[in-house]
């Protein structure tokens, strides 16, 4: 395998009602509950995209984090097949699974049912940014940075992708955390060499 250079070109961490882009805090909204906080991210960082309002909280969180991640870092230079998405979390889609289960006793909600898989958020991100590359959603006890780093490095090494959105996307009830990274072979943006240590620093 040819080990190619790869760079972390952008990062976005969202936790405790705070948004950190490339290591710098760019938004703090203390005292807002998660749905309101996510709506505020949509209002501030996105253009009109009515589908956002139909998404579950996990998808809204991931979708908004990618909007921020890709600000000033367009992916138009890549073929759709050349950008992958690799995410992980610990609660899968359990929050929405529970909400859906509550509807089953009366009339099961189709709108909730479609979000009862964790990888649906990858679909929402892919539709928004027209991505068709490799994707995966792993369920793990915690954010295993060496594993995700190694997985993405291998996708790049084998030529499966030229760029990859990757990281941690957790949400259950009002607990949440997003830590997403844009990794590319191309040296641009903040251009930190891809390594578990660099991701850990930005996390």
């Amino acid at each position, binding site marked *: 395998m040819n080990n190619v250079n790869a760079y972390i070109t952008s990062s976005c961490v969202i936790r405790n009602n705070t948004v950190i882009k490339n290591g710098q805090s760019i938004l703090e909204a203390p005292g807002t509950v998660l749905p309101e906080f996510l709506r505020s991210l949509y209002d501030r960082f996105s253009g009109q995209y*009515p589908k956002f*309002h139909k998404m579950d909280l996990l998808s809204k969180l991931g979708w908004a984090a990618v909007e921020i991640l890709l600000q000033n870092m367009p992916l138009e230079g890549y073929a759709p097949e050349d950008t992958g998405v690799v995410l992980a979390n610990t609660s899968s889609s359990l929050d929405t699974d529970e909400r859906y289960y509550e509807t089953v006793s009366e009339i099961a*909600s*189709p*709108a909730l049912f479609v979000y009862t898989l964790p990888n649906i958020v990858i679909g929402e991100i892919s539709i928004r940014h027209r991505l068709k590359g490799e994707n995966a959603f792993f369920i793990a006890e915690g954010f295993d940075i060496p594993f995700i780093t190694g997985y993405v490095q291998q996708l790049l090494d084998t030529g499966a992708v030229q760029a990859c959105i990757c990281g941690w996307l957790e949400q259950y009830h009002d607990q949440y955390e997003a830590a997403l990274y844009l990794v590319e072979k191309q040296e641009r943006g903040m251009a930190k060499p891809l390594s578990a240590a660099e991701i850990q620093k930005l996390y």
Partner: protein
Amino acid sequence: MEDLKEQIIRQLNLQEVKPEDIGNDQPLFKEGLGLDSIDALELIVLLQQYHNVRIANPEDGPNIFYSIRTMAEYITAQQNKTA
């Protein structure tokens, strides 16, 4: 029909749409409100939940859900049948 518009906005979570934005004869799908297949299922749920109306023949769906007016006419016709 105004009540029906509000029910649709609530059921489909159309947060950026107001009742007055929806024309009575405007197509609900594709070029109109841009609803999709999941929305169609939610509209079926809406008919059951709010109006106790079921669609006996699924092939009638496209005609029933063409617009606010066709939905309202179907609801009225079904309720008159059972009255």
